[in-house]
Every structure is written in C-alpha cells, then in structure tokens.
C-alpha cells in the first residue's frame, strides 16, 4: 500500500471513528451539539474513503474489480445514502450504527488484498462488474434498512418498557422509522434481485466458479426480503416483526461478506 493510500485510509478511519463517538455522545445527550459535528465528521470520513478509492484507481484497481473495491463502494454508498436521508429525517440514532458500519467496511476493504475476481479475464468482465455494482447498491440499501430497523427495535422496546427518556428528541417516531425501512427494502430488493440474477448468469458463464455456501445464503436473503415485502402487502406485516426480518436479512448478508472477506484474506 503506498503512502497516499495509507494516508487516506488513516484519515478516513479517524473521521469515521470520531463520528461514531460523537453520535453516541449525542444520543446520551451529553451535548446535542455533538450530533451536528458527527454528521460533518461522517461526511469527511466519506470523503476520505472516496479519495482512498481514487488512490486504488490510480494504482489500477477500480472498485468494480474485486471484493476490496466492492466493500469500499458499499461503505461509501451507505454513508452517502444516510447523509442524504438526514436532510429530511432526523436519524441521529441510526447514525451511531452507520458510522461504525462504514468504518468496518473501510478497514475490511483495506485488509483484503487486491486481486481481480477470477474469470474477469475470460471475457465476463462486464457481467462481473454489473454484478458487483448491483450488489453494492442492493446491499447498501439493505444496510440502511437494517440500521433503521435496529433503531426501531430499540425505540419500540424502550417505549414498551416505559423508558421514555431514552432516544427522546434524537430520532423519528416509530411509524416513520418503519416506513423508511420499508422504502429502503423496496429500493434494494429489485436491485438485489438483478444482482442475484447477474451473479447466477456470471457463474454459469464462468465454469471455473463452483457453487458456494454464500450463494445458498444469498438465495435465503432474497427469500427473506421477498417475504418481508409480500407479507406487508398481504397480512400487514409491519413494526417489530418486519424489523426483525430486515435485520436478520442483513445479518445474513453480513455472513456472505464475511465469508468473501475471509476467503480473500486467507488466499492472500
């Protein structure tokens, strides 16, 4: 890793860390002014991550080439999507989940060595790139939905247990959180569907790629989110159950990404 790449990595990671701390302090209401600062540091962290991607591009590794690039892209889209959403919605508590998530994807991307995904040289470059970009977008939307759903679960539990002082003034009403999470799932699901399809087609075209456990999990994730959307329409599934399903779906995605990460790191 050259010095510029290292610099952007360190600076971006520091900003993400500070943003996380400030969001937590804002939630604990030590000083509400921390919340405004937290957004700024999150934005700066995103800029650092973007510059980091730029340095990789200069070195010949653009983000749609491998797992490292895809992880970086996911982190960046999640941060951008969150900040854009906060223009209209007060999602302080969600920020405390988004900033560490961005930090983790950033550091994970740095740890994964660059290697072109197998068989991109076999002429499946466009399909592979399409799959990666769709995965990045779909997973980012699900990440935002999961973060908001997590906040929903925490707030709902606090309200049910009469711990009213918690989160007071730092987040939206439960119905708004539920609606936002649903919208991100609705946005992410078709993208994720196309990602699964392109992934399947890519797998078919490249005989070198064998069926993996992650593919099975991806299918389960697809079914979970399809279930969330359908049941909402049919039976009115919403609130706590929908939030649990959304979070579970994203956790399953987390397992997939972790397997890809471990595989790349071990392969070196």
């Amino acid at each position, binding site marked *: 890793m050259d010095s510029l790449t290292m610099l952007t990595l360190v600076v971006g990671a520091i900003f993400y860390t500070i943003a996380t701390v400030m969001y937590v302090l804002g939630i604990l209401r030590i000083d509400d002014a921390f919340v405004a600062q937290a957004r700024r540091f999150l934005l700066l962290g995103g800029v650092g991550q973007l510059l980091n991607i730029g340095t990789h591009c200069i070195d010949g590794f653009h983000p749609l080439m491998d797992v490292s690039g895809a992880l970086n892209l996911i982190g960046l889209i999640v941060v951008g999507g969150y900040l854009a959403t906060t223009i209209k919605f007060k999602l302080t508590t969600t920020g405390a989940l988004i900033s560490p998530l961005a930090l983790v994807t950033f550091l994970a991307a740095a740890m994964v060595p660059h290697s072109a995904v197998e068989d991109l040289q076999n002429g499946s470059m466009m399909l592979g790139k399409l799959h990666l970009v769709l995965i990045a977008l779909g997973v980012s939307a699900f990440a935002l939905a999961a973060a908001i759903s997590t906040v929903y679960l925490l*707030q709902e539990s606090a*309200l*049910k247990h*009469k711990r*009213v*002082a918690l989160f007071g*003034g730092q987040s*939206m*009403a*439960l*119905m*708004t959180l539920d609606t936002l999470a649903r919208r991100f799932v609705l946005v992410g699901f078709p993208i994720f569907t196309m990602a699964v399809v392109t992934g399947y087609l890519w797998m078919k075209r490249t005989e070198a790629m064998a069926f993996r456990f992650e593919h099975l999990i991806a299918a389960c994730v697809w079914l979970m989110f399809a279930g969330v959307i359908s049941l909402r329409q049919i*039976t*009115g*599934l*919403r*609130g*706590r*159950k929908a939030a649990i399903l959304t979070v579970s779906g994203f956790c399953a995605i987390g397992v997939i990404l972790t397997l890809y990460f471990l595989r790349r790191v071990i392969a070196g």
Partner: protein
Amino acid sequence: MSLLVTGCNFRSAPIEIRETLSVSSQNLAVELEKLRERESLKEWIILSTCNRVEVYADVIDPMLGALGVQDYFASRCADIAELQRHLYRYEGEEAVRHLFRVASSLDSLVVGEAQISGQVKEALHVALTKGVAGKVLHGYFQRAFNVAKRVRTETEIARHHASVPSVAIELVGRVFENYEPLSVMIVGAGEMAELAVQHLIGRGVSRIRIANRGYDRACALAERVSASAIEFSSMTDHLSWADVIVCSTGSASPILTRLELVDAMKRRKQRPLVIVDIAIPRDVEAEVRDLENVFLFDIDDLKQIVSENLRARQKEAEKAEQLIEKDIAEFHQWLTQQNAVPVIRELRSRFTQVVKQEAERAAKQMGINGGQERKLFETMTDAIVNKLLHVPTVNLKHSVAEDSDEDLVAATCKLFGLDEPALSESIANEDSPHKGNHET
C-alpha cells in the same frame, strides 16, 4: 439596586391568604392605582397568579417602601397578624434574584412551566399602560425576560413534559410523527377525557369520536370539542378505525379486552395503536400490553414518566440557577460601572470647560484669531484635559468594576462638587449593553 419585592407565594402562604390577596386581570388597573397613595414608591407592578401575589417596586427608601406595600396588603386582608407571617420581602440584589427566578419559572410550582413568562409580561404591560411603571422597572423586567430566554434555550428545563395529559400526548408522538391525520377515540366524557381531547386538538387532531355510557354526555362533550359522538355499545366496531384510544371511564372492570383488540389489530392490518388508559380501575386489560404494535400506557406509567421528567427538570434547574447567579453578578457589575460613567463624564465636561475658557482668554491676549495657531491651542487644551484625567478615570472605573468601591465615586463627587448619579437611572439607561431582543 433599588428594587423591592413584597408578597407571598404557594410556599409561604396557604391558599386562603393568596385568595384574599389575589387580583384578577379585570381589577389589576384599579389595584395598581391604590398603591399610588403609599409612600416611597416611585414605580410599581403587581404580579398576581394562582401561585403568587407580589408587588415589585422601585423605591426611594426600602423600609418605607416595604411598609407601604405591606399596608396595601393589610387593607385587603382582615387578619393582619396572620398575613404578616406569610409575607416575604426582598431588597436590592435579593429582589433581582427573585425576579429573575420567577420569570425563569424556577420559583414555580412546576419548575419549567411556560405560563409564568406570559403572566409577568402581562403584569408589566398593564403597569406601563397605567403609568405606574416606568423606565426603571421596565429595565429590570426586560433583563429578567432576557435571563428567562437564556434559561429556556441554554438548559433543558422546559423540555420534559410535567403533566399527565401532556406526557400522554408526547407518547403518542413517539409512535406517530404527525398528529393531524390521526383518528382518536375517547372512551368516557369526564374532566380528564376533555383535557386529553383539548391537548390533542391543540396538536391538530380533528378526527375524534367520543363514546360514553351516557350518550347525552358524549354528545355534550362532542359538541364542545367539535367531535362526533358514538354509542357506547358500538365502541368495539370503531376500534379498528382509531389510531389512538383514550380511556377514562368509571367502570369497575375492563371495557376493552385483549380479544377485542387482537381482532381490531387484524382489521387494522397491524397499524400501530396507542392506548392511554387513565382510569382507575383500569379500563383496558393489562394483557393488551403484550400485543404487537399496541402501545398501552396506564395512569401509573404516565405518573412515573411525569415524576422522572420533574427530576430531570430539577437537574436542569440547578444549571439555570448557576446561569442566573452569573447574570446577577454581571448585572451588578454593569450597574456599578454605570455609576462611574456619569461622574467621569461630568468631570471631563467640567475640566474641558475650565481649560477651554483659560485657553480662549490667553489666545485673545496673544491676538490669535484663527489658523494653525488656533488649532494648536485647541489640540493643547484637549491634551491637557486627557492627560490630567487619564489616571483618575482609570482609577474610578477600576474601583467600581474590580472592587465595587462606590465610596470613591462619592468622594470624587464631593471633591469636585458634582451631583451623585441616581443608581436607578443606570438601569433605565438607554445605553444598556444587554439591550436586544428582550421578548422570550
């Protein structure tokens, strides 16, 4: 500081005494006029609320002023001896502290309540209109409003709701972002139910149905609050319609069961439902709490939240007290500094006059009428005055600012034959450095 406060509040006097002394808004102007006969009062304001009756006055002599106000109170109360036991009196800095605390709602029955600010402003307005309050009290009260505004913005004293109905409405807001599109069903038509309806209407709710065992009472309440009445027997049919249900009947047993609500939630397609049960005995079965997307709050829950909120307000009140103390210290320093300013101004004017006169005479004798030489003379006279007065000016300002030593001011006035400034004129000074947006 020339401010005097005399009166009683909910801590110092029982309601019987406060009732006797209280002044309605219709009679306020008349009562203000009665204080005109009292000695030593230059300006005065009567503040009468359900928790206090106080007279704020700018006085010539604090002792005489206090006697005058007590005399006024005594004229309104048969048992003077009893009255004396319950009146308090604050002068000078203590009076300013009391005024600041009252305006900031720190002396209120519910700390952080919002009504007192408006009540104090109204009292000032009436007194100013009547012509019994002037620049001095206006200056003190405007300062109090500034402090109250700072207390509200720099602390969270007003943030947490402190009454059962307002807490209930806040809890509804934790589930639903907007109140306007909500459908609300009120079960019961008593006082608490009406209070809850008024709070909801205040938040923009317009779709309200009222159910009560006595249909007539439901209709009467519905008419008062522009809602619609429904038969009590058909209440369960409306459960799926309502987003918020407020129960406040006198029923001995629950009127809403878990089974009914399970069915209602199915019909509502699991849209969230908030139930506020302020009845004792409870109107809603406790098992309802466990239903998904149903948020049930009974009277104990609400009281617990109110008590937590009041504790939180008390903590913020401590911060507010520190803020007030700091402001009083700054205010006192500014007032004493103002004492020195007119003296310095007068001294400078005196010196300048003398030096200019002598310079004029010398210029005439030397035949200097204009031009460069004249200008030189004028520059010289200014320089003489500045140099002579530089050290006394600095010492005067320093002595009042750092040492609060007003004796030096008095000594300077005596030494040079100047008029001592009236302290009260300082507070009425238009050059107050803290003048700004005084309205909270």
